């Protein structure tokens, strides 16, 4: 474990565990990425407003390192009350730059983005 930025430490420390929603609700979309024992595993859920235009809340579970927890906590804050259209624009670069991820931890951002994009694609 190498030294991380203050932004990563803050997000990791502030992160609180979520209870996932039951999946079979029309305003909930779920995505799971990763392979247990080989990579991080992320389960990400989005709750949408009744018009399916805005993200009301993001919840997640993750089996992964502390940076993965920090990234998902940041993403949770970032997408709250964001339109689907704007959420689609969130990129790996945003995550890496905002949290100042070191090169050996950039895969945490890649997997978080993949989980978000997969959940959004499950909307249709």
């Amino acid at each position, binding site marked *: 474990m190498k030294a991380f930025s203050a932004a990563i430490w803050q997000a990791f420390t502030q992160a609180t565990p979520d209870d996932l929603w039951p999946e079979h609700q029309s305003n909930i979309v779920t995505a799971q990425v990763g392979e247990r024992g*080989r990579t*991080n595993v992320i389960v990400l859920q989005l709750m949408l407003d009744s018009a399916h235009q805005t993200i009301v809340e993001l919840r*997640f579970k993750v*089996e992964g*390192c502390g940076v*993965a927890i920090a990234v998902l906590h940041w993403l949770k804050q970032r997408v709250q009350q964001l339109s689907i259209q704007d959420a689609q624009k969130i990129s790996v670069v945003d995550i890496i730059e905002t949290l100042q991820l070191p090169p050996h931890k950039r*895969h945490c951002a890649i997997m978080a983005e993949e989980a978000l994009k997969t959940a959004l694609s499950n909307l249709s």
Partner: protein
Amino acid sequence: MSHVIYLDYAATSPVDPRVLDVMLPYLHFPGDFGNPSSQTHLYGFRANAAVETAREQVAACIHAQARDIVWTSGATESNNLAIKGAVYFSMQHNKKPAHIITIKTEHKAVLDTCEYLEQQGCTVTYLTPDRDGRVQPSMVEQAIQDNTVLVSIMHGNNEVGVLQNLVALGAMIKSHSILFHVDAAQSAGKVPIDVDAMSIDLLSLASHKIYGPKGIGALYVRHKPRVRLVPLIHGGGHENGMRSGTLPTHQIVGMGAAYALAQAEMMDESKRVAALRDQLWLGLSALPDVYRHGSTTHCLPGILNVSFSGIDSEALMMGLPHLSLSTGSACNSAAILPSHVLQALGVPDRLIQSVLRFSLGRFTTEQEIEQVIAQVTQQVQRLRQFSPFWGGL
């Protein structure tokens, strides 16, 4: 800065203040800073005398003769000199590739050296230990070939702390007239070692694992019967031609003092540290789904290797900023790199991913262990709630 509890003694230990006091006069005027090889003036004579006293102190700790101790830069160099030196000598005289036997749980200083020799045409058998981490003499004996030159087995494992039965292994290896090398970087000064009773021909020793300075180590090389090595470093013929280079008197004096202290205090200290380790395990095992790895009966007093199911060990370490620990895996890329030691013990990847190594030492206190149990328990309970697999999924 808040107090950070140090539980990484297997990585390195602080220099004991008593050792530091002994070292300082060998660095400056008007002390004995001279070159021990300078045999033309008093500074050299005194430095040489100090080096020879330290040689006796280190030798005494392993029941060896002082003349059998060769100074090196550390246990990694000692392992290189022992393995390459013995194999090169054999290849020069027998004119055929050598075979080496070792185990999969060795330190990289041994494994990488063996891998290098494979590139030079040697063959290596890597034995898989049992689930406790031990190898039996029969397992080694079955691997012996006509051209086996050397068996290299570590005494105390740096990750799980398991101790090998060197008396039984050494007797069997000796009966086949094969050289027996032991990496004792973790065990020397902590548990008894007797090179004669264990039939050891070559023994690698570290200083910084036993409260001496970094940058100095030693290799025991048996004289009777004489073990012949090809030197790896040339330039002056120091250490009877086996390791050239100006001797760092202050480092050597420090290593000697550290070994003398370790020998004098070994029984009391190992009992005290083992009691702290047991206290730690008792506290941590109150959590559900925690697993201890390696033999619990044949082990170093200060090492405890534990998996906390459902948690990534790097996340746990981030949650424990006031503890200094090591993990058994590293998430350094998209893939997780698991510990080769735990893999060889048959530990499932998901548990290797959740391993912490606690290594306790001379300055660890009961109060610190209580704080460690409380902090780890709180973080394990918190982080398990993040896992999609914790709680029955």
